[in-house]
């Protein structure tokens, strides 16, 4: 089987392993957040299914602040307190399906 995939690009490899929409979204997020940057990571699933761990790996060495499950996020005042000032981006991760990129303002507006 290995010879079938010889010479694939990293994007093709990730598409094969994780699905094309996931791979494309990771590329988009990488373009938005610089390599030495930081972001807020939110688990979009109803329970801890590991989506955040998976997405964090593909975005490293960008540093993540984990806020936990999206359904358990606190009110906007408390949420703002927990978000480091240097972070502008929020990545919502799912165990199945591509992650979603939004701004901190969008996340706060949703609460």
């Amino acid at each position, binding site marked *: *089987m*290995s*010879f079938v*995939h*010889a*010479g*694939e690009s*990293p994007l093709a*490899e*990730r598409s094969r*392993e994780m699905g094309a929409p996931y791979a494309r979204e990771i590329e988009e997020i990488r373009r938005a957040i610089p*390599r*030495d940057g*930081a972001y807020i*990571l939110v688990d979009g699933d109803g329970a801890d299914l*590991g989506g*955040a*761990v*998976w997405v*964090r*790996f593909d975005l*490293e*060495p960008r*540093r*993540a*602040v*984990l806020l936990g499950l999206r359904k358990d996020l606190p009110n906007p005042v408390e949420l703002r307190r927990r978000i*480091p000032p240097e972070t502008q981006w929020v990545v919502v991760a799912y165990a199945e399906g591509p992650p979603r990129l939004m701004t901190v303002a969008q996340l706060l507006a949703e609460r």
Partner: protein
Amino acid sequence: MTEVLPSLAGILLFLLPGLGLTELIPPLRTLPLPRRLGYSFLLGLTAVAGALYIGSHLFGLPLRRMEILAVAAVMVGVGLSSLGWGKGRRSGLPQPRATPWVIGEGTRWHRATVALLAFISLGLFADAVTNPVTGWDGRMIWSAQARYLRAAGTVDAPVLREARWFVSHPRYPLLLPVAQAAVSELVGADEDRHVFRAVYAMFFPALLLILWDGAVRWAGAPAARLACLAAAGSSAFTFWQDGGAASAYSDLPLGCLTGAALVLLLRSRRSVAGAVTAGIFLAGAVLSKNEGTLLAFFIPLAAVPLLLRRQDRRRQAARLLAAVIPPLLALAFLASWRAGIPNRYDEGYTGFVTLGTFWPGAVTRIPLLARLALRQMLSWDPWAAFWWIAPPALAVGWRGLRGRRCPLAMTLILAAAAPLAIAWGAYSVHWNPATLLRVTWTRFLLQGSLPFLLLLALTLRDLLLSRKLARNSH
């Protein structure tokens, strides 16, 4: 196939320094090259990655290409100079007889076995150069940490030392992530390239070569061949993505390091250099995984039944002491490195485990856990037929563990059981032992696999001898 040459370079980064260092160690220097390669890889990885780990934390050595090359080159140079110096010094003395290729190594069965095992190892290499890392712990811990280390150029990366960042198990020992980062840095690979996977794949042939070295000595070539084939026949050792050589987990490396230490400690019975080298492998175990600390001090204890039976007890006691010093130093280093890292996203066993927490779970959970463990061992994925074959072989060939080989068998049983005792302890106190067992039991078995496979070889020897005797009696 753009990954092939960089992946080979990654293997050589550890293999060549290891070959150099084995020149300094008489019990390894006199081995035939194939058997020496297994030890060389482990020694090179422990020495190079360990030196980078220590150098980075204690002396601010950057984890960058020139520094990595310099560390490796020093070790290769030490070996080369030792080779030249040793040849000159030994030229006037009677030469020790080189260890012969043992009986059976030239047979067609042997050639067929070697060809099959080489084919499987090449398959692992092909998988490593083709596919990204997919196993859970590889992405959550080891490869994740490696990316952070490489980006920061230090083992004291701010992302580890600042509590706000999301890092799983930030205080886990980093020998393997340092090795990964060193390989990627050496070949200038970006994050998406998985050149480091070949290093993990190498642990499978390394395991086989060390198994062969011990098994051929204690059980003979035919039994050693069968034990190697038993390991190769189970994907738990090979293509299993959650702990085998195709993964980026630390369990198989830990099993190789502790197993190599045990074999070396037992087979180089007069050599202090051999015992120190076993200690270096044990130091590697301490720096590879949390359980490594417990195993590193248990392995010399397990060797006591065999070594202290000998007449030169004082020398053996000195050798055991020599084997314990490197892991003690590694433990002190680990404490220093961990001191600056706030723990988070971790079970934090040390925070709540006391002697009292083991009771009554250590007893009451046994029926449930034993059932789950057995079910996992007898499942085709990842063990194939291994646990359908090995226990009956042990039961039928039990005579191979008696008599002269009884102390050796005792030592191997203790060493194989040590990781399982750690597992039992963890399952006794964990809040969800069934889930923990589901994701860790096979990996604990891998940690103790080398002594278990050696034990299997001893019983297979008995079975093969019985068969031969029965055939000759007709």
